[in-house]
């Protein structure tokens, strides 16, 4: 059936699809528009778009950020032109649909690495800006790697936005405000079509990794605070099923890009060879309930025992250190038809007790969670709705079938907000909307700028509907 409000005479393709985020929950139907060129977006975004429009990349947001029930999603993944003309100065220009996988494949052999990469390389640059993603690099989020970006708005304007003086000196001064509302703005200010990214020089495509086992969460945090400054990347993998005196036992992995001198002779002959083994596909279907207390306890135990008590200066590939899960395409299906959710929060330094209590709560109900991830941030971002702030960030995957999960997470939200922390909107699928202004103190400011950029409130997503992000009081 042709749906009311479906746009016609659009260049590119249109398909009605039921969409979910990466965690496979809360499906809704939208019309996916794949424009044929970046110019198509500029020419057509100012349409009325009944039930709105939102950009969608590779669908790695866990929740409903890139869904738009009954409306349109504009999918830019086909558009990934890469311009390496500025590579010698460490800058690369690309279309917003370009994935970090494509960028890495192009820049690593030339000795350049993205400043910030998340736990999967299958994200687009547009999505990375919208969610202001972060990774194991604690000194900045994706915003810190953007030189400038092009934002197409629903008024038909194309703005150059960015944190640099170059953008701020343009007339109107709007571009800097638009930048602050767009980075971390979950796609609701318009559609980013292009960006220029700053890169980090590397001598080799290898990482020199130190691995240590931590016997509990306090030990782990103490070790991170003590010696993180020696490493560019740091991450702790926590066994969430360990209880009692083992609560929060972890394997801490910290790394720097290897220098040529650190490579053995075999690797030194081709130091910048970016090794990506072909991925394998997860089976198309998994039985519900495969992720349960027995299987996860066994997996986590095995994983903890397999890690060396301490291993220093071990050489590892980029994929093995940054993107182990990328080796299995569709790993998210392991949770069965009801899906899962990823709960991620950040709390400022001094609120370590909240991290401990969260682990305690998951462990007390024996939540069947694969490894949780603990990381640190040392700076906040430009984005008004950006997640990172100086502090500790904990990430836990939980099957949605876990009894009492809704109440448990509501309790944790209350603790997080009381400690001055927040949950990450790119992962969220269940937050109580009343929490949003407390978690994001610049929310009101963001709303005002959003309303200026999108006066007819055409940018819409399920995340926005669920949390009431966009201010719809004056229009409708």
């Amino acid at each position: 059936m042709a749906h009311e409000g479906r746009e016609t005479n659009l260049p590119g393709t249109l398909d009605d699809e039921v969409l979910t985020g990466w965690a496979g929950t809360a499906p809704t139907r939208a019309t996916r528009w794949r424009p044929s060129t970046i110019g198509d977006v500029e020419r057509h975004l100012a349409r009325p778009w009944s039930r709105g429009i939102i950009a969608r990349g590779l669908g790695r947001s866990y929740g409903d950020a890139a869904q738009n029930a009954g409306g349109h999603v504009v999918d830019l993944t086909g558009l990934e032109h890469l311009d390496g003309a500025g590579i010698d100065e460490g800058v690369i220009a690309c279309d917003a649909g370009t994935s970090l996988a494509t960028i890495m494949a192009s820049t690593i052999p030339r000795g350049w690495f993205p400043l910030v990469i998340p736990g999967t390389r299958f994200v687009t640059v547009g999505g990375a800006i919208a969610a202001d993603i972060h990774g194991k690099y604690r000194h900045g989020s994706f915003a810190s790697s953007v030189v400038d970006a092009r934002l197409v708005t629903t008024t038909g304007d194309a703005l150059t936005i960015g944190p640099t003086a170059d953008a701020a000196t343009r007339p109107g001064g709007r571009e800097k405000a638009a930048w602050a509302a767009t980075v971390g703005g979950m796609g609701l200010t318009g559609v980013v079509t292009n960006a220029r990214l700053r890169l980090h020089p590397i001598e080799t495509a290898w990482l020199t990794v130190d691995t240590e086992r931590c016997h509990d969460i306090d030990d782990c945090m103490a070790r991170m605070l003590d010696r993180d400054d020696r490493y560019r990347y740091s991450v702790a993998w926590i066994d969430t099923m360990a209880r009692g005196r083992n609560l929060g036992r972890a394997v801490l992995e910290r790394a720097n890009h290897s220098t040529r001198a650190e490579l053995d002779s075999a690797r030194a002959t081709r130091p910048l060879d970016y090794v990506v083994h072909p991925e394998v596909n997860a089976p198309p279907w998994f039985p519900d309930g495969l992720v349960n207390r027995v299987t996860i306890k066994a997996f986590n135990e095995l994983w903890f025992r397999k890690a060396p008590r301490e291993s220093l200066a071990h050489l590892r590939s980029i994929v093995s250190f940054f993107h182990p899960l990328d080796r299995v395409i569709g790993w998210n299906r392991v949770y069965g038809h009801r899906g899962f959710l990823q709960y991620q929060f950040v709390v400022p330094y001094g609120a370590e007790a909240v991290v401990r209590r969260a682990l305690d709560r998951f462990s007390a109900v024996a939540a069947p969670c694969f490894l949780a991830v603990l990381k640190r941030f040392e700076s906040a971002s430009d984005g008004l709705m950006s997640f990172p702030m100086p502090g500790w960030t904990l990430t836990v995957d939980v099957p949605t079938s876990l009894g009492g999960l809704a109440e448990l997470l509501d309790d944790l939200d209350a603790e997080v907000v009381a400690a001055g922390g927040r949950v990450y909107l790119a992962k969220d699928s269940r937050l109580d909307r009343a929490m949003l202004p407390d978690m994001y103190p610049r929310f009101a400011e963001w709303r005002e700028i959003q309303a200026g950029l999108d006066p007819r409130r055409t940018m819409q997503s399920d995340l926005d509907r669920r949390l009431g992000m966009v201010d719809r009081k004056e229009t409708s």
Partner: protein
Amino acid sequence: MKNSLGRVESVLVLGGTSDIATATVEALIGRGTRRVVLAGRDRGRLNQRAETLRALGAEVDVHEFEALDFDAHVGVIDSVWDQHGDIDLVLLAVGALGHPDTDERDPGAVVDVIGTGFTGAASVGVATAERMRTQGHGTIVVLSSVAGERVRRANFVYGSTKAGLDGFFLGLGESLRGTGVHVMVVRPGFVHTAMTAGMKPAPLAVGPERVAADIVRGLERGSELVWSPPTMRPLMSVMRHIPRAVFRRLPI
């Protein structure tokens, strides 16, 4: 907008004075539902129910709805949507038990029971499904009954109405796959409600709160079919296969 854990923000009840529907909405409000619309024919009783639900913290509105006035259905559904915006969940609780002892010899009474519980429900259900198709998401929860699973001599007018309703909405649910709209058919056994007051309870009789809890669990699981209590399923599976000659002698 619904969330990943089966919670819904807005609910429309068609047949807003139903005890099972009220218990369900109470449970949903406790889990984050903020907007409720009660539609039905008895304005006074709807207002009473609305007061009870407002006391729980929800924003509640009342709408006129007559299941037998088929021509008005599209208008009712449109006006609810136009006034309230997206509706995440519609609870279809229209039905009439009738008077089992006398209805079977009264054509007009038979038409009323079937018209309310089958034709009316199907008509307003399709109107609802069309709005939900357009909004790209939504859940329709239909109160069927085990009475439709094996129709008994004692209440065959009601039972056959539920049998039709059940089959219709299971089929509608299939037809809505791929649209983002989900249908869940609920088959309660004997429930102690205003509708069954004075009747002799059948085995496994439960209160409306129990059915509400089973509905909420079905929503969390994304179920297509819910038995309440769940033990009704094996029981009815046996009942369905009892030969007619034996079945008519059973004291039920």
